[in-house]
């Protein structure tokens, strides 16, 4: 009993000293809390549907950030991972009768393979070359999909997949918990040693090589990890919508994920997730004016970029928090002195 009390008190101290002091951490906590307990308040199927799709695309956008933001391997063909996983999951589900819990991970593994396949030729390319080359892969695959319609369903895609689960609420919990878990895992990866090497590869690959690190291996690792996470989201999407079609591979899809990620702020993981949770419901809101909905979307992005070119969420974070000049620890913007080393904040 005493031990439990000790841990509870310790938890409370950590909570008070580490979470409540920073508004960004409070926001993240609230985000988890609201998402997990929302169905207790409302079970409106339309709202849940939007949140399910938002969660799926949040995984997708964050996986782009892992590859292109952190490692600096600009990928303009991210829809490839999504599409490969969606098609694999669909084919496995329809022909091998695998249930979703089997077909989604296998689809993600197929996306990892796709990551290897496109990663190897792309290792020698950098920057803009890489971006423009990766754009080609989903289009090549789309051509193949159209060319063998008896196997892939051609333009119509593969429909009639198993549902994710029986009910909307279970679907909601599966996708939201997956999103929160994978988001945390990605965030953890980027804060690990591997993540540090990813950072370094983006900043200066030559220097990393000089330091004795096999950058090729790490770049391939980034391709595979990103492919895996994007693949999970692709599989979830296929099973939730119950269709895998060529729309999953389109250029628009690749561009949208770039928009989400950069709009939210790259090299953060939480940026793309937040951006999807802002932009996707916004797009749904604009459906009241269906003709101009994409136009409004484009204009919102153009205007916001003019004022916060580093992305929305880092901009907000910089407004509400300042970094201590001495110990580099973040503080609430209202504080006069640093909460750790009591240095003057300016």
């Amino acid at each position: 009993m005493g031990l439990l009390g000790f841990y509870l008190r310790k938890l409370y101290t950590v909570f008070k000293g580490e979470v409540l002091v920073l508004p960004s951490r409070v926001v993240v906590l609230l985000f988890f809390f609201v998402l997990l307990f929302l169905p207790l308040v409302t079970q409106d199927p339309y709202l849940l549907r939007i949140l399910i799709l938002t969660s799926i695309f949040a995984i997708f956008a964050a996986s782009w950030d892992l590859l292109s933001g952190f490692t600096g391997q600009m990928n303009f063909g991210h829809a490839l991972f999504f599409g490969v996983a969606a098609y694999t999951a669909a084919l496995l589900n329809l022909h091998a009768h695998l249930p979703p819990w089997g077909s989604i991970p296998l689809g993600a593994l197929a996306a990892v393979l796709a990551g290897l396949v496109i990663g190897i030729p792309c290792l020698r390319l950098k920057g803009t070359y890489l971006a423009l080359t990766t754009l080609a892969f989903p289009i090549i695959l789309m051509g193949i999909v159209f060319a063998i319609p008896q196997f892939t369903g051609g333009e119509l895609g593969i429909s009639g997949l198993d549902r994710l689960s029986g009910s909307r609420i279970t679907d909601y919990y599966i996708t939201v918990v997956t999103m929160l878990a994978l988001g945390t895992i990605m965030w953890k990866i980027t804060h690990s040693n591997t993540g540090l090497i990813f950072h370094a590869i983006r900043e200066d690959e030559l220097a990393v090589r000089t330091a004795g690190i096999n950058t090729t291996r790490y770049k391939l690792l980034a391709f595979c990890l990103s492919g895996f996470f994007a693949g999970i989201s692709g599989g979830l999407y296929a099973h939730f919508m119950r269709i895998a079609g060529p729309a999953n591979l389109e250029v628009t899809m690749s561009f949208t994920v770039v928009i989400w990620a950069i709009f939210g702020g790259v090299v953060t993981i939480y940026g793309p997730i937040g951006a999807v949770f802002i932009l996707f419901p916004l797009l749904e809101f604009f459906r009241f004016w269906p003709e101009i909905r994409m136009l409004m979307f484009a204009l919102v992005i153009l205007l916001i970029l003019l004022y916060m070119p580093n992305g929305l969420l880092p901009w907000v974070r910089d407004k509400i928090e300042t970094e201590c000049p001495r110990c580099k620890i973040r503080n609430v913007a209202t504080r006069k002195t640093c909460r750790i080393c009591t240095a003057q904040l300016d």
Partner: protein
Amino acid sequence: MILDIIISSLINGSVYALLAIGFSLIFGVARIVNIAHTAFYMLAAYFIYYGTHKLGVNPALCMLVAIIPVTLIGLISYRLFIDPIREHEAAVLIATIALAMAMQEIMLLIFTGDFLGVPSLVEGYRMVFGVKIAYQQLLTVAMALLVLAVVWAFLLKTRLGLAIRSTAQDREVANLMGMNESRVAMITMGVSVGLAAFTGAVIAPLAIVNPFMWMHPLIMMMAVVVLGGLGSIKGSFVGAYILGFAEALVVFLLPMGSYLKGSVALSIMILVLLIRPEGLFGIAFEEER
């Protein structure tokens, strides 16, 4: 059959070459990956449609005039949306994507998604070895080649061309040598959008005008630029005809060819990149650090 392939690859190749040169110009000078490049091409096609069908202007005049408003729109959108955030490459990237989307949506609003056609400049055709070759096709190829020659002369023989080329090579040194870097960037943007508009104008009678017509050329243009080597005009030229020829070959010879044309052309690009990562005529730059 062979003649069909040649004509079609010449037309596609010229269009891709014109687009790719404009695209790599603005990339070289200002390091802007302008996704909206082919959206300007679409815009020009719509201007011609509007001029000929709604205002009843002579098509030839319309083609020449259409270039001006499109270039102006290009320059204004560059000033408003891209110039202020040029320091942030990623932001510029999605700004151009958003710009292209906005243009597509505006066209969709005004003209709806219908497939439209633009009248030919010259009617009639000639039979060569049993193949029908419309005069319009010949005219398009001839005009494209002419403009390619003009652009080449402009870049290599004039002082402004020299300024553009030197800014592309080294922005800072060019600035130190007294070339106003931001003005060169502005002029290059004008030239680049102008080229896109011209391409749209010459191809409009042969293409189906619709708001999504910018997607396919965009992808092919990027493939051409990568294949030929970023910033190399000769490379863009050769790469464009290689991919145009590959596309035409696939369309005419393979079953399901029209679906596979993009795939095959892009696979060729990737194969070339495996052997020469800097493209056919690209120079392997010292790593920018």
